[in-house]
């Protein structure tokens, strides 16, 4: 029981906002939608990036994107482009901007914004179908989780 509690506390800490995080409302996107500064100030962990990309409760990126390197997890979607080789042609800055809020790079994109907390129409309380309890939602991914995903995407090189 004690161990479970500690493990749970660790999970919650990983998802929560940290003191030096750039707050979702303060992220600086350049005119192409890229974000220069790390959102958490801590290097991303590509192994955790994989977990976030494949987990339905987190990024669920493979719901829309196919990634050959992640074939161990079944059912990759086709709504977005295949991400193989993305690390060859996108910089960390561009990827950070796309994952934080893809609409700043691709106007009107179908891709959800993962680091955005307000400005939604009928925001819900996660997947319950009920109204959100707070004015400001928790972003789908934390600052560190976005850095982790970006770190993993940068490993996707074909050359």
């Amino acid at each position, binding site marked *: 029981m004690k161990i479970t509690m500690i493990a749970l506390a660790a999970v919650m800490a990983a998802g929560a906002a940290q003191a030096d995080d750039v707050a979702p409302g303060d992220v600086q996107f350049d005119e192409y939608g890229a974000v220069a500064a790390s959102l958490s100030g801590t290097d991303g962990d590509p192994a955790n990036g994989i977990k976030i990309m494949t987990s339905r409760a987190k990024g669920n990126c493979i719901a829309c994107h196919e990634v050959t390197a992640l074939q161990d997890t079944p059912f*990759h*979607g*086709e*709504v977005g482009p295949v991400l193989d080789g993305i690390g060859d042609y996108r910089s960390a800055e561009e990827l950070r901007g796309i994952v934080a809020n893809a609409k700043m790079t691709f106007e009107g994109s*179908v891709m959800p914004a993962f680091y955005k907390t307000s400005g939604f*129409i*009928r925001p*819900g309380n996660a997947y319950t179908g009920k109204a*959100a309890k707070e004015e400001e*939602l928790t972003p789908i991914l934390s600052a560190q989780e976005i850095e982790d995903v970006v770190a993993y995407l940068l490993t996707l090189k074909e050359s």
Partner: protein
Amino acid sequence: MAFAGGADDDTLIINGEIEMISKTAAPAHLDDVFDEIVSGWHFRTDETQALEIDDFDNPAMLFVDQAIDAYDVVEGEAGESCASCHEGVENFAGLATAMPKVDADGKLVVMEDLINECRTERMQADEWKWSGNDMQSMAALISLQSRGMPMDVAIDGDAAPYWEQGKEMYYTRYGQLELSCANCHEQNYGNYIRADHLSQGQTNGFPTYRLKQAKLISKHNRFRGCIRDTRAETFAEGSDEFRALELYVASRGNGLSVETPAVRQ
């Protein structure tokens, strides 16, 4: 790993004789969106498709049989059954093609409203729960009388303001994921989203037997599920918003055969 493909080229013929219009030219109001509208049947696996082509295999028919029995049952203070006023259920042929419609009072009504109005006002019986088995089985039985006939809901005149409201909802990007019906069912039909093969989100087969839920599903229940999946606050089944959305979505299927009761995954 990519499955790409979109709609398949199979032909939907039920019981070896009822030829369904499961693909046809898009209605005029969709001119700049689609050339062709396609039934959700074409996006399902061969196994799921097979369950719909023969009534003996169609699990929805168990519910339709229950409604056939209920149709003759006297209930409520007035001492009436559906049959005592309407005679044979085949008299409802054609009704489903025109639903939703605006009633004499100028209100947009859907099939569930018509059924419950008879239950409460004419039979003086309890109203049926929107997504309950009684209601959806009866809605399926009545819609089945129009099977094969093309959908043809009115969108002009009294219906126009409701249609506009539904259209606006269809293109609204709800929830934390900021996704509209159109993002999935217009821009991405034919693509997979995770394990789901996206269709055009047509309603011509409703109430639909959903294998996952093992029962008949109402249109409003489906809408609710789709909006919930955008991390949004949904609308209630039987809300005026969903009536309007139902009209708009039905109009996107004008020309497709009524396929009720369809079978989906």
